[in-house]
């Protein structure tokens, strides 16, 4: 069983929803990422999405754009991201890691090395899933096959504008989980409408049988809880990144920990009584 499958199985057994923080790799400091990932897990993260910096992140709002630019200035590209995952894996062998980014850094990785190099190296580093923002299912065939060979899931996005035909297309190909974009807009926008999200989730679940996470635009613990009540996973991105901005490393780590802890606490309010406590390493006082 893959780490992603195992994680979602465990959560389902416990009656919990997955909490998935998104962090841009190499932000705010080039070498902070492995430590940040451990802190996020300690604070209650179930899966980590790691943003791969790209020069032209056209699906991202100002926060993730700026984080991406900052990381690039510090020389963080795909090889560095894979190295960060490898370091994280040295002491965490259970928490799934999903890379989220754009097609070009992945295609270039193979172009410079050889076809299939990215999938192989990502697997070797300990990556569990890959989400390519600008690969709709129609063009994802080659990468999907390469990743599958190495046991990595290709995660797809769906949106409220997705037609039934497109939802079916994703349902046929998706593994791991499906990422539902909660708003019309870019990451970090502030217009999430919970009823709209519910309606979209219902349409998605008519065809998609694997877990569905919701992200883009979740910027407070209360909204996160509302989303968790209807989805299988909640993704927190821009809000988390904003909490790191301008802070020295130690303070940034503390801020990330506080934020994810506050969300976890909200999500725990809906966990059935009989459930055992969260996994041991989360159970800090």
């Amino acid at each position, binding site marked *: 069983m893959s780490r992603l499958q195992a994680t979602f199985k465990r959560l389902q057994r416990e009656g919990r929803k997955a909490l998935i923080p998104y962090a841009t790799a190499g932000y705010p400091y080039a070498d902070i990422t492995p430590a940040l990932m451990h802190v996020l897990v300690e604070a209650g993260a179930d899966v980590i999405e790691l943003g791969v*910096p*790209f*020069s*032209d*992140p*056209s*699906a*991202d*709002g*100002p926060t993730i*754009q*700026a984080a991406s*630019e900052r990381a*690039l200035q510090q020389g963080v*590209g*795909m*090889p560095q991201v894979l190295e960060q995952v490898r370091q994280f894996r040295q002491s965490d062998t259970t928490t799934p890691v999903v890379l989220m980014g*754009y*097609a*070009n*850094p*992945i*295609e*270039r*990785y193979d*172009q*410079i090395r050889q076809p299939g190099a990215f999938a192989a190296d990502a697997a070797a580093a300990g990556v569990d899933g890959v989400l390519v*923002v*600008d*690969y*709709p299912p*129609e*063009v994802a065939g080659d990468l999907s096959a390469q990743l599958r060979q190495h046991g990595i899931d290709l995660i*797809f*996005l*769906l*949106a409220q*504008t*997705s*037609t039934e035909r*497109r939802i079916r297309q*994703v349902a046929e190909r998706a593994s791991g989980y499906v990422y539902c*974009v909660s708003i*019309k*807009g*870019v990451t970090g*926008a502030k217009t999430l409408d919970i009823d709209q999200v519910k309606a979209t989730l219902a349409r998605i679940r008519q065809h998609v049988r694997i877990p569905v996470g919701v992200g883009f635009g979740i910027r407070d613990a209360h909204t996160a809880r509302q989303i968790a009540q209807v989805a299988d996973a909640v993704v927190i991105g821009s809000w988390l990144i904003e909490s790191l901005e301008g802070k020295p490393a130690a303070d940034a780590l503390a801020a990330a920990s506080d934020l994810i802890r506050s969300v976890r606490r909200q999500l725990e309010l809906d966990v059935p009584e009989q459930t055992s406590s969260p996994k041991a390493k989360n159970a800090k006082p």
Partner: protein
Amino acid sequence: MKTESIYNQPDADGFFGRYGGSFISETLAQAVEELQQAYLFYRDDPHFVVGFQEELADYVGRPSPVYFARRLSEQTGGARIFLKREDLNHTGAHKINNVIGQAMLAQRMGKRRIIAETGAGQHGVATATICARYGLECVIYMGSEDIRRQSPNVQRMELLGATVVPVESGSRTLKDAMNDAIRDWVTNVDDTFYLIGSVAGMHPYPTMVRDFQTVIGKECLLQMPALFKRLGMAKEHPDVVVACVGGGSNAIGIFHPYIEHEAVRLVGVEAAGLGLETGQHAASIQRGSAGVLHGSRSLVLQDDHGQVQHTHSISAGLDYPGVGPEHAWLHEIGRVEYVGATDDEALHAFHLLSRVEGIIPALEASHAVAHAVKLAATLPKEQVILVNLSGRGDKDMDTVMAQTGRDKR
């Protein structure tokens, strides 16, 4: 038609060989599909086609003339140079041809809000103009670096009623303006039409923009034989067609109808900036590699990590790290040659054409003129080079004067 049987690109998914396609986030998929369908429908709709032609005639002033640049040709001592005068179009460049086509499509799709990116400001001005003409809301994204370089065009856009939004991300030029326009589109997808200014972007833009711009080459196919006859030359087609290549819309517009005429040499001129060997240029075809940018796969200037590189050109309209996918394909199959002209060569051509023909060319078009002059000197007098003079140079006065001042010092 012969053209279609020989050269039939792209395929149904918008691929020109391995280039093109639609690399977009799911949040845009529905809007792009809707656009693809609308375009496929209206491109064959006689009312739409006739309406487009009428607008080009009455509002733009088409057909634009082809002019024999006799004194310029004499100076080179070689081949004769003809200019396709897109600089005489309303708003001063070829950009308006495409803008009218897309704005008509937007109206038929019921979209009342138009957004666009602009580099030199020519596409922004053309878009603001047509939005005024059709009563549509208009928002133009423009890199703050370009706003500085092309301030007269910013004033024109605002005069025409458009909102100009400065873009402060990345390199603050055309590519970043395009990113911001895409972000706007995702956010306002219900009522907004994204009017792209070149043959770049996701399918169907490279095809649609090309189709609207081929009016340039189609006119030439008719004009050149008549002109040759008048000048007593036994010819039907030019020997060489030269155009500058930024995103590639004016070039594809004049090349496309000539692709099937295999004896006609087609030459695209990229911005070689300070020189191809300096790294300070915008020659995506000559120095780029396959990559995915702004929704399509094409040739892109990028580093080893797949990060898109900053470009340099004296002309804002050529300062783009990618190029339309059809050019990448035409390069790959060898039908079009791609060369470079440096900033200095373009500036020289700018002054030369102004002095000997009384035509002040846009700095973009000056790149094509520069190469044509160089090439003409190597060819016999009987040969003819047709240059797409894509725009006029009024907008570039500040840049040129600043540069000339610097050279004098």
